[in-house]
């Protein structure tokens, strides 16, 4: 074996410092953000929102192991989230029973580590259900996942002793041994639990992408036929990835179980499966951090935006469509583009370009939001009128339509011009 090969090997794989910058630093930053948040003294709402985000981050990342990495579009990922969660809730019940009863294994099991149970539950479910579903990729896989999700969630309402019917199964997290001095009672203590597991989840999923199996899952996504001719069974690759994705979904389920102390069969259904799909996609499935962004944004919209507008689902739909149409890289893709532009040869020009584009978009948004809000208020028919910033915008007011039309026309004009400029530059 020659020196050349050894030398080139070193030059090929990124250097130690590069590795550090590209891999370790983002993780450290992530950990630091998680650790620093409580310093700002979040409110209860903020905490519960953050906790929900943590759960969804892990859930969305686990989903992206399938969609983004392995190219498997699933409509039933919530099944594994839910089954993992149920496993954790039942374990929570066992801990409670054991600590009031005669002890045993569960009496010594800290609630803090319930996500392990969730992981095991999700992975087990993945192993059982994945066996038939992973035989095929593509649309058949998607359809099977849809069918399985419907079946399992229907079963969820049938087997009351396991799933608790419509009411679900509740538990109490303040039992069993405490870990790290956290009683897990108050929500700010739960935050630490969530932060810890969010980090573990993200780290674990990241580590997975670096393993031979993780790499081969990408290879199988791109070209299953070729994967077979380099010694890999694509079905087995998919199946193993599926189990891991199920496991991490279950981990998120376990986090959720501790956070909410309740699990309902609804958690297994199509709706959350669809939501996690939206999260991953809006965030950007081709980017590792994409689903994190998506989870944060959608959790926020889901919980907070409904306070501001009845039409929040309409906005969600619009946002999603806009992303699908114009930014298939998702939020991460947009940020990535901005970042590259800033580091490109002409940051000033890119900045100017964005400023123009953003102005155009904002103008169009003003018009759209006015139109929607005006319509919503009007159609509710209680004589309500949209009144932003002290303006009075009834459906038959001249001002209203001016606020709708003028920015729209201006926005379209600006965007068109911006796009033309861009072409001219190329």
């Amino acid at each position, binding site marked *: 074996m020659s020196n050349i090969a050894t030398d080139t090997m070193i030059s090929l794989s990124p250097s130690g410092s590069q590795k550090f910058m590209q891999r370790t630093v983002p993780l450290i930053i992530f950990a630091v953000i998680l650790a620093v948040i409580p310093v700002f003294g979040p*409110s*209860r*709402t*903020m*905490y*519960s*929102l953050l906790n*929900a985000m943590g759960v969804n981050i892990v859930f969305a990342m686990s989903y992206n192991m399938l969609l983004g990495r392995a190219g498997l579009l699933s409509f039933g990922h919530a099944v594994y989230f839910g089954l993992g969660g149920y496993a954790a809730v039942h374990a929570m019940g066992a801990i409670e029973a054991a600590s009031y009863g005669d002890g045993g294994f569960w009496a010594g099991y800290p609630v803090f580590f319930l996500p392990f149970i969730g992981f095991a539950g999700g992975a087990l479910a993945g192993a059982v259900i994945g066996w038939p579903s992973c035989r095929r990729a593509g649309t058949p896989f998607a359809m099977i996942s849809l069918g399985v999700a419907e079946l399992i969630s*229907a079963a969820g*309402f*049938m087997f009351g002793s396991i799933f608790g*019917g*419509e*009411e*679900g199964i*509740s538990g*109490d997290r*303040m039992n069993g041994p405490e870990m790290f001095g956290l009683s897990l*009672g*108050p*929500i700010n203590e739960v935050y630490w639990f969530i932060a810890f597991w969010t980090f573990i989840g993200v780290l674990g999923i990241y580590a997975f992408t670096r393993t031979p199996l993780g790499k081969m899952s990408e290879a199988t996504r791109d070209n299953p036929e070729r994967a077979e001719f380099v010694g890999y069974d694509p079905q087995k690759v998919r199946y193993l990835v599926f189990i891991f994705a199920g496991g991490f979904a279950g981990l998120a389920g376990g986090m*959720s179980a501790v956070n*909410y*102390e*309740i699990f*309902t069969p*609804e*958690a297994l259904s199509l709706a959350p499966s669809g939501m996690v799909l939206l999260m991953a996609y809006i965030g950007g499935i081709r980017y590792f951090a994409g689903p994190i962004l998506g989870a944060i944004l959608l959790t926020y919209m*889901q*919980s907070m935006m*409904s*306070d501001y507008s*009845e039409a*929040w*689902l309409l906005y969600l739909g619009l946002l999603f469509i806009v992303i699908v149409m114009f930014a298939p890289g998702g939020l991460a893709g947009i940020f990535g583009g901005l970042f590259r532009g800033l580091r490109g040869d002409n940051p000033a020009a890119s900045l100017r370009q964005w400023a123009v584009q953003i102005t155009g978009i904002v103008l169009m948004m003003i018009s759209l939001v006015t139109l929607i809000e005006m319509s919503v208020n009007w159609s*509710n*028919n*209680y*004589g309500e009128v949209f009144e932003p910033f002290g303006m009075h915008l009834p459906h038959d007011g001249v001002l209203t339509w001016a606020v709708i039309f003028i920015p729209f026309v201006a926005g379209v004009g600006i965007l068109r011009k911006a796009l033309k400029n861009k072409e001219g530059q190329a």
Partner: protein
Amino acid sequence: DTLKIAFIDPLSGPFGPTGQDGLNEWEYAAEQINAKGGINGNQVEVTGYDNKVNPKESLVQLQKALDNGVRYIAQGNGSSVASALIDAITKHNKRNPGEEVLFLNYAAVDPSFTNDRCNFWHFRFDADSDMKMEAITDWVKGQEDIKKVYIIGQDYSFGKAVAAAAEKNLTEKRPDIEIVGNELHPLGKVKDFTPYVQKIISSGADAMITGNWGADMVLLIKAAIDSGFDGKILTYYGGSRGAATAMGQAAVGQVMAIVEHNTNLEMSDAHAAYVDGYEAKYSESNYYYQRIDNAMHMLAMAAEKADSIDPVDVAFALEGMTYEGPTGTLTMRADNHQVLQPMFMSTFSDNVARGVDNGPFGWVADDAARIEAEDTRTETTCQMTRPSK
């Protein structure tokens, strides 16, 4: 000061309309009481929190409400959500002494909330499903021509509770009646009830009893009428929004609903003004939840009695309180926090002073259809544990 009530119910999605109606009435009730000086001198503020009928989301909204300084939670759509909220509130109150929260349940009627799972922090202003079934079967008792009854409901705790109560009550009150069917169908999944209805028709039933709500109720009744079912249809929620439109002329005299109020009852001037005011303000919705008005008044009385708006004091004051409401005397039982109020077997009619859904149809109840509050009392298994004062 203000007394803040968080209304946690669906405000968007498929159940949005139902929740919105509830919120409207809570807000209207607050407005009316504020006009009279509020509760014990405090203005009442009702804020809607959208839970999308999801127990988990309800808990997030609960945290939000707590942040905003809310100490009173109102909820009704779905016993499953109520169950989650009861649990969460109990834990919260245990974990955060001094910040207790009270749960005003205006529609979630799972009997267990005032029985095995009864709880000091929970007060129910609606009759529970057992009480409603007592009322329905009492009415059936008097109907000699009903010989065969078919029970159909949604497959979940509430539907099961309804079915069990119906079976039990009927065998007690009318042993001669044959229960020709007792069926649970999946919740919110059936698109065409015709097969079910034909089963009911072929069973020869003279009456059908159902606790269905939402689309399940509307579709069921519509299918029954289209297929020419001519027996009585005895419902819990026939009076809710949108049903009248779907039922139409054919359902007149045939569909009945057990309610605590309908707008064609004899009303005092003050009460009529209250109802008129509501319907004028919210032209798209109808006055439906008398119990919200009741709850608001009872809350006010309790606060005044305790001379405090602290939930713990108010809760103790609410126990055993009586209130002279528009339909009669109401009592909040101290033993299980269940209200007792007069109930009415209302009948769907086309000859009404006030229609619903902006149509010509509405609900009526004559004197014979009135059930006195005391008669709705049921046994309770509740063993209430109370905090120390």
